[in-house]
């Protein structure tokens, strides 16, 4: 019973999680996934990498001659390391709120859709139009047509807790 939480167990548990997440995207059941899904898989395991982080990781994972696929044998050790080292830690609700507040330069307490779009599609690691539309569909209050970011943040972070 005391052995339960030794390092070995943790590693095995971690690897099982990785294996399961990988399987969801392994459509052909041949232990490979499309390289474009790597970001999704890593994020689904609870990590918050930036796009730049992802590019680095993918570069590591790709074959010498890029096939467009990533093999599980390569993915597993890399991902295990990421999880055990707790890289790409989560973003807290507070921090997120602060970020919105920064964008809300006039301190209105809300953001216009166009405002937010401008920031998120032009600055930082820009969203595609599709990503922007998706986020807006969840964020914009249908009655007032603005983003009440405080509510939005609480709602989204609440959603995730399981």
């Amino acid at each position, binding site marked *: 019973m005391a052995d*339960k939480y030794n390092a070995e167990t943790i590693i095995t548990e971690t690897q099982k999680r990785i294996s399961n997440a990988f399987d969801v995207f392994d459509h052909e059941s041949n232990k490979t996934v499309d390289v474009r899904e790597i970001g*999704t898989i890593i994020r689904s395991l609870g990590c918050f990498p930036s796009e730049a982080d992802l590019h680095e990781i993918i570069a590591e994972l790709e074959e010498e001659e890029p096939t467009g696929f990533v093999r599980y044998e390569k993915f597993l050790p890399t991902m295990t390391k990421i999880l055990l080292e707790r890289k790409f830690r989560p973003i807290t609700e507070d921090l997120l709120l602060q*970020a919105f507040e*920064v*964008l809300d330069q006039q301190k209105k307490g809300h953001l216009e859709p166009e405002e937010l779009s401008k920031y998120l599609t032009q*600055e930082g690691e820009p969203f595609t139009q599709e990503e922007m539309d998706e986020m807006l569909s969840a964020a914009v209050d249908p009655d007032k047509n603005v983003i009440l970011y405080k509510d939005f943040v609480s709602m989204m972070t609440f959603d995730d807790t399981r």
Partner: protein
Amino acid sequence: MGCGVTKTSEFNRKFDKDGNVIPAAITMKAAVLIQRWYRQYAARMEVRRRYTWNIFQSMEYADLQDQIKLYNFLGYLMDNFTPPSSERNLISHIFRENEVCRDAEWERYFSYTNIDVPDIYSGPRLTFPLDMDQAADLVEAFKKKQQLHSRYVLQLLLETWKLLKVLPNINRVSTCHSKEITICGDLHGQLEDLLLIFYKNGMPSLEKPYVFNGDYVDRGKDSIEILLILFAFLLVFPGDVYLNRGNHEDHIINLRYGFTKEVLNKYKLHGKRILKLLQKIFSWLPLVTVIDQRVLIVHGGISDTTNLALIARVDRHRYVSALRPPKKKTPSRTNVYADSERYDEMIICKNRRGSLTFPKPFGARESFQRRSLQDFSRAVARTLEEEFEVRRRQGEFSLSSFSKSHRILSSAVSSDSEPESSEFTDTSNEEWKQILDLLWSDPMSHDGCIPNEVRGGGCYWGPDVTEGFLNRHNLQLIIRSHECKQDGYEFCHNRKVLTLFSASNYYEVGSNRGAFVRLGPDLVPYFVQYQATSMTRGLSFPQNVKRTEHTALKVLREQLFVHKSDLLSAFQEIDKENTGLICLNEWASAIERVLHLDLPWRVLHPQLVSSTTDGRLDYHGWFRDLALKKPSSEHIEQTMLETLYRHRSTLETIFRIVDTDNSGLITFEDFRQTLKLLSAYLKMEISDEVINKLVISTDTNNDGSIDIDEFMEAFRLVDKSRLERGKSLLKLMQDNQETESPQPVYSTAPQTSQCPASQPADPPASNTTDSACSQTANPPALQTADSPGSLAEDCPASQTEDLCHISVVVPPQ
């Protein structure tokens, strides 16, 4: 100050050397943060969406496997002929050719002229030949939930049959005159989608040609209406409407997937004849369509042996069902048995050559080899031959039965007087394989061509096969359907194969979009996607995902619940010390062992398991939490009920096969035999005592017969967590029974399930469709779509939480 970046200082203002704020840097940081966070959130939504999709697909595959298993089992019965086996006799009829009559006799059988249409009937009254306005009126009428009177149904179908008989196997279409051709995929009885397509794209006309790529029926609840609309337009614009046959245009498939039930429920008096006529119509539907000699449109796909020249030559109507041997064109009347012995040998040799499919380990039940659809039917024919041989030797039959059985057999046996075609010659087999391949195949990403063991027919074909095929036939694109796609369409094989699926929300509201495609003379596809429920439009992507996920999980929980006994044994095997606890890994592997659904259980576990202590699950408590209530009966033990529930689709299919006259009713005796069949299939004892109890408790009509629908109704599970909504009356009944002296729940089934308020698409009582004085003693049977895995839902309470499919045409945008 300085470079220490703690969380709180992330957004401290940055100052340049003059002390001015540098806003850009801050906003960029903020933007990056939000983006990073949102992408994480979106990724997790994506995973949920993905495994929800997996759940639906694996349930669908499991259901397909179930069907194959059933047919294998029936084939096994046929093979192991024991005279006289009553169970075998129950089912053999379906695999025999029917009385072979001339067309004139059929026309008499299908005659509609003596069917009166009462004055109070307010639906469309068709006059033939049909014109465009009548076709449009028909669409309007169905939009208003009216039902076409059986007289007109039969008339329309007869006209359709006549037309189809002169059409070639390969429709050839041209995009000259700058006409754009619209192509639609599977519709599966979902009328809303067809209406939406017409709304967005216009109805078929001389300027607006359409190709429909099969699978018009089954699963959805308005299959017959879709057929009637398509056939009406076909009759009005025969040069501009093209119909391909799908694998669901097959009466044996329809027994399981809901179309037979739908027709019998909507047309109580004439349903049987309508079904028979449709059987013929289906076999006469063309097989493929070719546009401009460049684009092939076919329902399933191709194989490495697909040969269009051969396809053009076959007698397609001989291939009535994927599960029946091809019937002979003209019955032979000479002595059949001259070559019988040699013929037997030949057939036996053929069958020994082995199945088209690879046998795959399935579990204890699969002690006999899995067969492909083709093999099964071949086996059926062979044993019929044996049967008659035996009878002949025993001198049992009279002359009249000889000629009757002779005619029946003549479909399956070769004879000297017809040198060109003996039934199971290689040609016949080859043709049949060609057709199965066209209607049942699926593309795969690897090269090669292997038998499609998931579906039991057709094959999986790879990009190299596509290349070869397109080159050989000088084509540039294959458009096919047959598989549901999230976005309504999907390219593969280097954009040389397009899958097109037109039934939106196929698994569940919000599960997928439907699509249709337009091709102009340049043959560049232009896609239009849609989703036929207004409710999904108001929902954001995450909300949509959650809603669909909710249903998938519900379905999954149900599966877990009905496998409780097996799961419990599996858990207890692991938990040898009987602690009642099991760790997550073992939980996951045990479930996979029992259910064989190939799902990511560890990823799913947070949704299925509410709490764990120290990473271990209290499995007894977990079963209690699954929040489902079974129909209960003191007389019948829980395991038995669970088993019957689990196999209810199989049970229902057998019922419908046994119901030879398609009346929806079977006798006690047949019911008994059916359960015996099932117990043989499951290799599980269903004692006579149990059967008797079931029989007694099910005879609600008190007339010595059992209504299949009513019986199946008893097997609905009630979801405890949704007590309040809509199932009130039925639920109350069940509740009452449990508190007072117990009575089997079956006997209270749907008589009193009055649904409050709006029930969509029920045949309105005012529209007498069959005969004005039809028996109303029977409650209106619930028309529930036989969708894979989902519980039958009636009584929609249209709130956003409710997961009923509501048929609303999206209003103009």
